[in-house]
């Protein structure tokens, strides 16, 4: 790709908005994932009793729904990002492409 094309795209407001929005969104979700996983790990490291505590009268402990919750959260947060990226962000990206290659 020629540098002048790159510079032209870089100056396109649609491109700047795409870059800013997507990168912000990506980082927010990344931080959310880091907090959830390392929160879980630190909880295990510092307070095993809390996770081993029973929820009710049965054998079920808080650790089980929490652990399953981390798995479900991981799947959902990935889906949430891909949904927005494949919709809104790709439309913006398509605009940038049309503008750049016309």
């Amino acid at each position: 790709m020629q540098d002048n094309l790159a510079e032209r795209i870089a100056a396109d407001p649609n491109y700047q908005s795409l870059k800013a929005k997507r990168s912000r969104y990506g980082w927010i979700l990344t931080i959310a994932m880091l907090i959830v996983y390392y929160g879980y790990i630190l909880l295990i490291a510092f307070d095993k009793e809390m996770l081993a505590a029973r929820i009710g009268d049965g054998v079920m402990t808080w650790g089980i729904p929490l652990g399953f919750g981390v798995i479900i959260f991981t799947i959902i947060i990935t889906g949430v990002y891909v949904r927005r990226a494949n919709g809104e962000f790709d439309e913006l990206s398509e605009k940038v492409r049309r503008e750049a290659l016309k």
Partner: protein
Amino acid sequence: MNHNILRKGLLAAALAVPGSAMAADVIQGAEKQATNWTAITMFAAFVLATLYITKWAAAKTKSAADFYTAGGGITGFQNGLAIAGDYMSAASFLGISAAVMISGYDGLIYSIGFLVGWPILTFLMAERLRNLGRFTFADVAAFRFAQTPVRIFAASGTLVVVAFYLIAQMVGAGSLIQLLFGLDYWIAVVIVGALMMIYVLFGGMTATTWVQIIKACLLLGGASFMSFMVMWHYGFSPEAMFADAVRVKAELATAGGKTAEEAAVAGQSIMGPGTFIKDPISAISFGMALMFGTAGLPHILMRFFTVPSAKEARKSVMWATGWIGYFYLLTFIIGFGAITFVLTNPEFLDGSGALVGGSNMAAVHLAQAVGGNVFLGFISAVAFATILAVVAGLTLSGASAVSHDLYATVIKNGNPAPGSELRVSRITTLVLGLVAVVLGIAFKNQNIAFMVSLAFAVAASANFPVLFMSVLWKDCTTKGAVTGGFLGLISSVVLTILSPSVWEATLGNPAGSAPFPYTSPALFSMTLAFLGIWIVSKMDNGARARIDRAGYLAQQVRSETGIGASEASSH
């Protein structure tokens, strides 16, 4: 008597508790069993089907692009299954369900670590990889840098990861097959090596991907069926299943001579975290190796180049994350099923009261318990197929590093004679196949529990930081990337050797003598790599550094929009 058997079973299970945190991902040290014809027949059917696919794929594999990336013609859904297939190794299926059977909740903690890297890969890397790369992750890492040093680094990172991962898989194949099929260790290793070479040599990425997809479907189907049967037995009540498992564990403890009170505690202990996470530093370091290692495994990164667009690349990771997460939920149920169906059944315990074939057989015995001999044969065949598929993917990624990064770009300056790159990758495939077989046999009965963990640590400490900084940090330079990358590579290998899992468990030094006391080096080696890249890049003011920085804008525009990438993918 029954109690006696139960007690011995418990002792054996206790002895089999993974000494190192990663032992659950490695199969080894199994004894040979009687020849299992059902399993061998089913495996033969799988091999015939995959050879047929290879023949079809071979007709389509003409250019280097076909060989490395299946011509970029894989859909997001297909690629998602293939990625999941690459990630769900036989060792993780059998090892994690065994870990759950032995220690319950700790097995879940372990598997979660393998899942949480996927969103990070999706949010920060997937799209940019697709937009910048063509065949290998070095295409991305070296995009705006001096090609030779960065490619040499990336090829080293790739080959180190591939080598350790391959050895673990080959040793797993040998042990598993003598266990499941009753064949000799070396026969199993040779079969895996030979079939893998056929897939990769003739069918390239197309065949490797379809082998992986078929295997992923068989594995997910088999695991789903087992979990369904277990849950059905308990009327789909998790509480009933957990309660029964707690009761079994308590009974085993009582039979082992514990008082009623101690036994009740031992039973309930599988419902919460045990000894798996010791100190917070080990916990975080290990978590980092798994999380960021996922985003640095060359055979996984390579899969992003097989889809036609960034949109499909994102769909791939979404599907992969879904399937892998689902799979880990299943292994948890399978592990608990093994407690209640396998540990209570004398049929599955050998003369000394241990699980026949070792604790890694938990899922295999459960297959027999819930589905009879035919299903046992099916699960055994799937386990072998799984190793085969993972080995094929690893070999292809090692071959690409040699032929595309070293031969075509470094030696031939990016202008290899027509057809010669493809020839070199096929020769490399042959060499890697032979090396894998030889190493597989050489490492028989060695303690290799650290190898998968080392592969993840190197991927997280060498490949990931260079990839991340080159794509996202404007001021990164060739010198910085190469220095930091090698710092991460060397420090992660050295610290692993100095850690208890190698220093004590493999080299035989006394317990507690390991100079590096933590489970995983990633926290330290990753930090070192990032610092190395940052400091050296900051101090670098040479002519090359100016070119590196000036190239960032064009790289960024392409990584964000894919403009310019379409030519790369329209093979």
